[in-house]
């Protein structure tokens, strides 16, 4: 018992290296290359398999960015936010609503998505972070649901029926109407957000946030204003997820309040936990595995949610440290 505890402690205090252990590094790199090359190969060779199509992988990449951003606060900051899908919705509506009024510039959509999400995170985070534990889980959930009902009540923008985006964001240098370009842009955004999280968690700021996760009272005693640090991390994560939402909105070209329903937030949380909290690439593994299993099961049966739910419950009961933990340990049990 003491051994595992001290091992966990060491694990926890160690600066997350970009890729983890040596064997983990190879697997992670190979995985990221596969994620880039397989859909490209499938696209150019004309393979018509849904599971490797550019469209399917683009959707996964968008969700992976959202999961990476959630991991910043959940995995490194210990803030269990159950309302992260709200930022996906806000990001998507920041593309949809201006496009509806004829403003189609991506240079407007993307900054707006990031700032609006960050602003929502600032306001709701300022209230939520006054609380702890289970209160925090429920409050973040309730605020996300507030956003859901807000967009639901906007009849002008489709309300319940959603809003179709007739033209994707316009950039003067690239054309994301082309699905290949959109895929590459999304992939680049994913890599950039992983790198951003890497830089953040290894910075002085990130150290303080991680310190709050291990022992907030001690960080306070050391003189840190932990509330301000956590709120800043919360806002950064919100803005990053807003980017994911803007990409997802551009990808689906149809947005509805359902994108930010609370089951979406639960799914995002599952991706992070499944992949392994507090690891840089874990959320990507989680997102890929989650969406793949969902897609596979739904091709077999309309009742796919049943085995899926069972898998989720079993994974909570039996997988410790997520998929990334398994990869880093090389499938050893310890």
């Amino acid at each position, binding site marked *: 018992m003491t051994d595992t505890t001290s091992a966990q402690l060491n694990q926890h205090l160690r600066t997350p290296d970009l890729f983890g252990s040596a064997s983990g590094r190879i697997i992670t790199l190979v995985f990221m290359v596969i994620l880039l090359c397989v859909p490209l190969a499938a696209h150019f060779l004309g393979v018509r398999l849904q599971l490797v199509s550019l469209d399917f992988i683009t959707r996964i990449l968008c969700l992976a960015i959202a999961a990476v951003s959630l991991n910043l606060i959940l995995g490194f900051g210990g803030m269990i936010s159950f309302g992260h899908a709200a930022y996906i919705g806000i990001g998507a509506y920041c593309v949809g609503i201006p496009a509806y009024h004829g403003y189609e510039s991506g240079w407007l959509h993307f900054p707006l998505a990031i700032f609006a999400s960050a602003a929502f995170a600032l306001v709701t985070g300022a209230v939520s972070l006054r609380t702890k534990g289970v209160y925090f889980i429920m409050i973040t959930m309730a605020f996300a649901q507030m956003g859901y009902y807000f967009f639901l009540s906007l009849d002008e923008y489709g309300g319940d029926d959603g809003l179709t985006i007739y033209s994707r964001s316009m950039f003067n240098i690239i054309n994301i109407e082309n699905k290949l370009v959109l895929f590459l842009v999304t992939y680049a955004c994913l890599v950039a957000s992983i790198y951003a999280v890497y830089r953040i968690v290894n910075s002085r700021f990130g150290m303080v946030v991680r310190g709050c996760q291990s022992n907030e009272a001690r960080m306070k005693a050391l003189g840190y204003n932990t509330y301000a640090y956590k709120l800043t991390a919360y806002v950064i994560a919100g803005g990053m997820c807003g980017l994911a939402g803007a990409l997802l909105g551009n990808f689906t070209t149809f947005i509805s309040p359902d994108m930010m329903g609370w089951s979406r937030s639960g799914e995002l949380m599952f991706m992070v936990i499944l992949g392994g909290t507090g690891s840089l690439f874990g959320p990507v593994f989680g997102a890929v595995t989650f969406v793949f299993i969902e897609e596979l099961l739904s091709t077999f049966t309309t009742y796919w949610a*049943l085995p899926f739910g069972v898998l989720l419950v079993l994974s909570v009961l039996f997988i410790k440290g997520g998929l990334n933990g398994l990869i880093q340990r090389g499938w050893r049990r310890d």
Partner: protein
Amino acid sequence: MSTLFFIQFLNGLQLGVLLFLLAAGLTLVFGIMDFVNLAHGSLYMVGAFFCATLTFWTGSFVWAVLLAIPLTALVGLALEMGVIRHLYQRDHLDHVLATFGFILIADTLVHLIWGPEGIAIPLPEYLQGQVQILPGVIFPTFRLVIISCGLLVAFGLYWLIGRTRLGMLIRAGASNRTMVSALGIDIKTLFTAVFALGAVLAGLAGMLIAPITEATIGMGNDIIITAFVVIIVGGIGSMKGAFIGALIIGLIDTLGRSFLDDILKIFIPVNAAETAGPAISSMLIYLIMAGVLAFRPQGLFPPKVR
């Protein structure tokens, strides 16, 4: 205007008591087992579907409710003994994730057994009509039944927790469960009983609302968030908080939806009020929640000993 206000007040009260039934179970389970149950809304749905089937079998809504209550309790027992018992030692994150999985399972199982359509529950003649409560104020009988059932249950819970031996154990378990089990109380059985009680309360709420809204898949998934708001406002783990919180939230939500745009019209142009009204009233309870938390992060009536 005053008649309409009175009727909407009663509607709000009816929503309030339903929310109380849900929130009471949540807050009991959290207060005693320190367990967060997202799947509480699924028990609400399961109760409604049991009641629907039994209404068709027995031909009587009242018998259906009486039979569906023990059935829902059985589901609660099975759930607790099968899985949830193994989660008490885990952290809240694991509770949330596992019960999230349960929601998927429950929704799909209901889909498998009862099909995708909602089921309407026919009410007996004597519950269908409307009664005149005050001169000029007519209100559906069944909604009055819901209100009185809810208040009766609230009173029953007050008696159970404050006056009986089981209630004494529940209160003791909430303040110090290690001590309770050290004193020779079978804490496992107590936990199972409390969980089943929560399940019954949620199921009862589902049975009561189903004749009005139909029993539908996922019916619990929206109202459970409102129930969370109730216990956050009231103070998690506090029965008094759940009761007062539920009535406040039920009334504010209902009255906000019916009167907010009229009130706004006094201050801002009619057009703007008609757009802003629905948007604000749909967010009203969350704004109230934020307001309460800004001043009292532990809710209005936090439990005294934890």
